């Protein structure tokens, strides 16, 4: 166990460096092949050379290696790593604001959204999976199977737009027309966009949309895992001993079946951060995801690169923790 942790930590370092280099090289190649990204800010107008020069320098695109196609720009990469790990500097936007500041403003909303999404997918997903897995071939089983395939195949932005219009606008308008319904529900929870007045209530529906795809995966995973374990010898033994059904399912089956599910939920935190880009754009939540989309649309590539680098680091740390947790949770796995 101890050796495994050390080895996993040692593997973590090259992976982080490699991923950051991949991100760096993709950006460098894009600049080398399509020219200075600062020009995009001016649209059709030709900027004065001095202004262009100044902005280019300030955003860190002035390095001559960015003019040589295919050059991996190791010097630039080393500078970037130094800035990130020693000065905690992820770059600046056009108005001289640090990307770390922008992210600090946006992160509370994204965190709330993530908590709602993960809670929703864990509670509903596991419940649906257990229901389907315990009675394979029943109506509940088919219902879960069919609905999960359907949810997985609807792209999240289609789901988001349709939910916003149907639930937020149409159904919300009906609710807002009734006097007896409190404002928190009618114009908070069922609002088509994020409302600063109801910071928690108006994030519930976006959170559910964000968690929907992973909810389907969680349900399927729980279902398969329960179906496998319920036929295991130790469950039969537990039944033969005469334990109550509740104990056999709650303790013997469920605990073992949830190991892969918990791993998935951990890994999914990273995926949900990427998914938040779409959900926050649709529901206009002022979180990290919308920051990325808005900067991408206006061509502020320095912000996009900085924020994504930060998110990637978070995802990597989350994956590391999940791996270590897995080793603790499942004693059957012996790492050499």
């Amino acid at each position, binding site marked *: 166990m101890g050796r495994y942790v050390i080895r996993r930590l040692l593997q973590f370092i090259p992976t982080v460096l490699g991923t950051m280099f991949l991100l760096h090289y993709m950006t460098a190649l894009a600049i080398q092949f399509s020219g200075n990204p600062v020009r995009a800010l001016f649209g059709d107008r030709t900027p004065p050379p001095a202004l262009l020069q100044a902005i280019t320098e300030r955003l860190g695109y002035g390095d001559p290696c960015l003019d040589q196609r295919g050059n991996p720009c190791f010097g630039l990469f080393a500078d970037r790593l130094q800035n990130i790990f020693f000065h905690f500097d992820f770059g600046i936007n056009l108005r001289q604001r640090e990307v770390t500041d922008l992210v600090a403003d946006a992160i509370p909303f994204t965190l709330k959204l993530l908590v709602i999404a993960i809670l929703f997918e864990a509670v509903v997903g596991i419940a649906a999976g257990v229901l389907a897995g315990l009675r394979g071939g029943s109506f509940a089983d088919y219902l879960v199977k069919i609905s999960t395939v359907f949810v997985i195949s609807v792209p999240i932005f289609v789901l988001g737009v349709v939910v916003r*219009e149907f639930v937020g606008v149409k159904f919300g308008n009906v609710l807002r027309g009734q006097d007896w319904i409190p404002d928190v529900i009618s114009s908070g929870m069922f609002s088509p966009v994020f409302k600063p007045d109801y910071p928690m209530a108006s994030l519930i529906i976006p959170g559910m949309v964000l968690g929907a795809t992973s909810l389907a995966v969680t349900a399927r995973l729980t279902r398969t895992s329960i179906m496998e374990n319920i036929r295991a010898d130790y469950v039969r033994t537990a039944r033969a001993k005469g334990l109550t059904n509740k104990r056999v399912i709650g303790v013997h089956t469920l605990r073992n079946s949830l190991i892969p599910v918990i791993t998935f939920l951990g890994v999914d935190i990273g995926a949900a951060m990427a998914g938040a880009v779409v959900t926050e754009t649709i529901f206009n939540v002022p979180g990290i995801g919308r920051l990325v989309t808005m900067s991408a649309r206006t061509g502020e590539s320095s912000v996009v690169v900085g924020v994504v680098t930060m998110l990637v680091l978070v995802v990597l740390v989350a994956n590391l923790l999940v791996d270590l947790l897995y080793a603790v949770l499942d004693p059957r796995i012996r790492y050499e």
Partner: protein
Amino acid sequence: MSDLTSAGTAVGGAPVGGDGPSTEATTGGEGRSASLWADARRQLLRDPIFVIAFIYVLVVGSMAAFPKLWTSQDPRSCNTDRSRISPSGEHPFGFDILGCDYYAHAIYGARPSMVIAVMATSGIVLFGGTLGLLAGYYGGWVDTIISRVMDIFFSLPFLLGAIVFLTVIKRQNIWTITGVLFLLAWPTIARIIRGSVISSKDLDYVQAAKAVGARNSRLMFRHILPNAIAPMLVYATIVLGSFVAAEATLTFLGVGLQPPAQSWGIMISTHQVYFLEDPWLLLFPCGLLVGTVLSFILMGDALRDALDPKFR
């Protein structure tokens, strides 16, 4: 896949042939015991879900390849007088905000999604498949290097990586989108192939072929690959669907194809604000998109069941 050499059929043929006389009768003219693939084909053709999904994909594919078959209208002949006119017999999907025929736009919009999905999928199958085969077959330091590189690509979340690249490059056309999908998705295929190569490279028939003196390349392509390819085929089918969805998602976020081009993603993102007055503007492209993704996923599921002997 029936061209397994004598070493392969000598070991693998016996249990497959044990299906009993009924299957012999149905295969009829072939006159030999059914292979895994013949069995799978028979099972798939009997599966109504697979057949429906397959027909749907064929329809969408023909829209992409020959849009003239489906519509004689030009999606670019627009007239703002006709903006947002509801569907009618002559124009089944009505007109969009600029007064262009919406049905023609939907038909022509199939092409970019399908072209991107097919090109990116063939790319990852060829490249990822080769690397996975090499890593699984040779093991040792080849495997270590390839696996570490795969880890690195894995840790970059798909959507985030795509947004970064497409924002910086600013040339958002079919080629760059295909490129970024390919770049970020090949390790999954490589990992799948690597796993199934490792599990089948020590089987008896491979050892037998090795003992007879087959070269490495022959072992890989004649003996190991045909038996390791099934999981890749399943994944490639599903990934076609997710690439169609990914193209639309990137377009919706504003980093994919840009408006003069025609695609379902553009149809959805341009008309989302008119949902309340004219919901059909949103429902037609959404329906086509979801149907395509769903069909690919269902086909993949059916393929998995048909190719896995455990489910017989």
